[in-house]
């Protein structure tokens, strides 16, 4: 039986005007790339990647988008929310030279992952991209790790000027990486796929999730039927290459297809 944990919010960090990190004192025992389902029982239960996870606590980093995340942003330290998980697949832990390419609110999960990679002895380079300076997150925390960080914004307002994909292409032409990991907007990953040649990779995907335990079928990726909540959200290259919906469409809460 998967248990549910109703926890007090222990810490809130405002990363940007639209992004907050929530920390909980709880031994979650998650692997990097996994997510939790979170609810306040006021309507809606949503998936969030784990942005940090130690023996004592774990964090998620959330972007305010719609009804649910707006309500979440009104919560204070000490308020209860209820979570279940961690769910889903996690990143392969390479011991070699790896490149992480992240964009927007999907970058922080690489903070948790980078720490695990370092422990495993990997050599880590991170491209931390955002549209603009005001949306760029976690630069300080990545700086504290023994990894190479390249910050970038689409408009050049912080770090390098260019998309994460532009930068990835550039540094991959200068250097060899054994493994590439990406987490961010699907079109970013689609573009990446075209520029990284035959480097092995894993991508972290998002699809509409309801049950998160692999039965409702809302999150399957065509045509393989991979359930993003179980076989995903991290998918390996050989699977990604077979996905016909990748970069093309996704399904909403009713199962209806929408172009990306």
């Amino acid at each position: 039986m998967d248990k549910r944990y109703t926890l007090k919010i222990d810490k809130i960090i405002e990363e940007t005007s639209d992004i907050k990190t929530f920390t909980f004192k709880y031994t979650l025992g998650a692997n990097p790339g996994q997510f939790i389902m979170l609810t306040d029982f006021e309507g809606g239960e949503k998936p969030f990647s784990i942005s940090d996870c130690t023996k004592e606590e774990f964090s998620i980093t959330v972007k305010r988008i719609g009804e649910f995340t707006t309500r979440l942003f009104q919560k204070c330290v000490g308020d209860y929310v209820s979570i279940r998980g961690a769910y889903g697949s996690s990143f392969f832990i390479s011991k070699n030279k790896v490149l992480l390419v992240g964009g927007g609110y999907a970058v922080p999960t690489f903070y948790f992952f980078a720490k695990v990679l370092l422990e495993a002895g990997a050599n880590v380079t991170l491209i931390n991209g955002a549209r603009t300076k005001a949306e760029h997150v976690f630069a300080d925390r990545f700086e504290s790790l023994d990894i190479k960080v390249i910050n970038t914004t689409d408009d050049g307002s912080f770090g390098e000027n260019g998309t994460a994909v532009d930068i990835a292409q550039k540094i991959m032409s200068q250097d060899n990486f054994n493994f590439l990991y990406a987490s961010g907007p699907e079109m970013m990953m689609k573009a990446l796929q075209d520029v990284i040649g035959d480097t092995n990779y894993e991508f972290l995907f998002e699809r509409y999730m309801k049950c998160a335990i692999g039965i409702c079928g809302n999150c399957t990726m065509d045509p393989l039927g991979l359930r993003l909540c179980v076989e995903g959200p991290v998918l390996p290259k050989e699977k990604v290459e077979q996905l016909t919906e990748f970069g093309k469409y996704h399904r909403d809460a009713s199962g209806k297809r929408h172009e990306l």
Partner: protein
Amino acid sequence: MQKSLKSEFLGITITSPLVLPAGVMGMAFSGFNISIENGAGIVTSKSLTLESRMGHKGPVVAEFEGGLLNCMGLCNPGIVDGLAEIDQFKKHSDIPVIASVFATNTEDFLKLTKHVNKSQTDFLELNLSCPNVFDEFGIPLAASQEEVHNIVKAVKQISTLPIIAKLSPNVYDIVSIAKAAEFAGADALCMINTVGPGMLIDTKIIKPVLYNKFGGLSGPCIKPIALKLIYQTYSAVDIPIIGMGGVTYGEDAIEMLMAGATVIGVGTAVHYRGIEVFNKINNEILEFMEENEYSSVKDIPKLEKLEM
């Protein structure tokens, strides 16, 4: 002798007696794909309605010891998009597909039937028994002998496909309802839908865990209820039964067969044992057949019928 799982359901050859039931992995054609790759012999679509439905807000599932509560709220892309997923699946597969449809009155069931007639679907299943939309639609149709009779009869007249009536376990007298469906022309029965519904409470936030408050029970703990209702029904009708409710291991499937089922649905167990559950149960059934020297699924004996 080589044991085989091959059998027949309503005249169509099936490679395994295991059925992916309505609402489980049946949203997209790729959900059918992964299920048959993992050993399912028949697949069923999510229950489709005339218009698309977003379903209830989350949490829509909650676990408890022995089972799962769900209140998906009949989310589905609507009959047109839903049948498109079936047709896309049928382009490259011979595995039979059941289209499950849901409505609250005969007229809408007839409209849905006309859509299904035009698709590549093999069987039409009438979901008369969803307990998760009580608020919206009231007591399920499957609680009324008369409603069941009228809807099945009307649909039978225009359906080009064999029709299956999906019954609710939450009724006083399953036999009279099953007989009403049979009498009205149902070619098969599917039972049981989820039990209850039930509820769970978060004791810290002091709210129901499901946003819809109530949800239907599925999983191992409803098996005894399913077996009892299937056995009673099997004793009283002559049409085949798709038996489901908590089947998780091969033994459970054998119990369903002995209670009177012809084929067996495996839903919630996909959560407990992974999507591989179909192949696992297939193998467990084969092992049972080996041990007890049954050479085909049809040879597995049934209980003596109840005297009525």
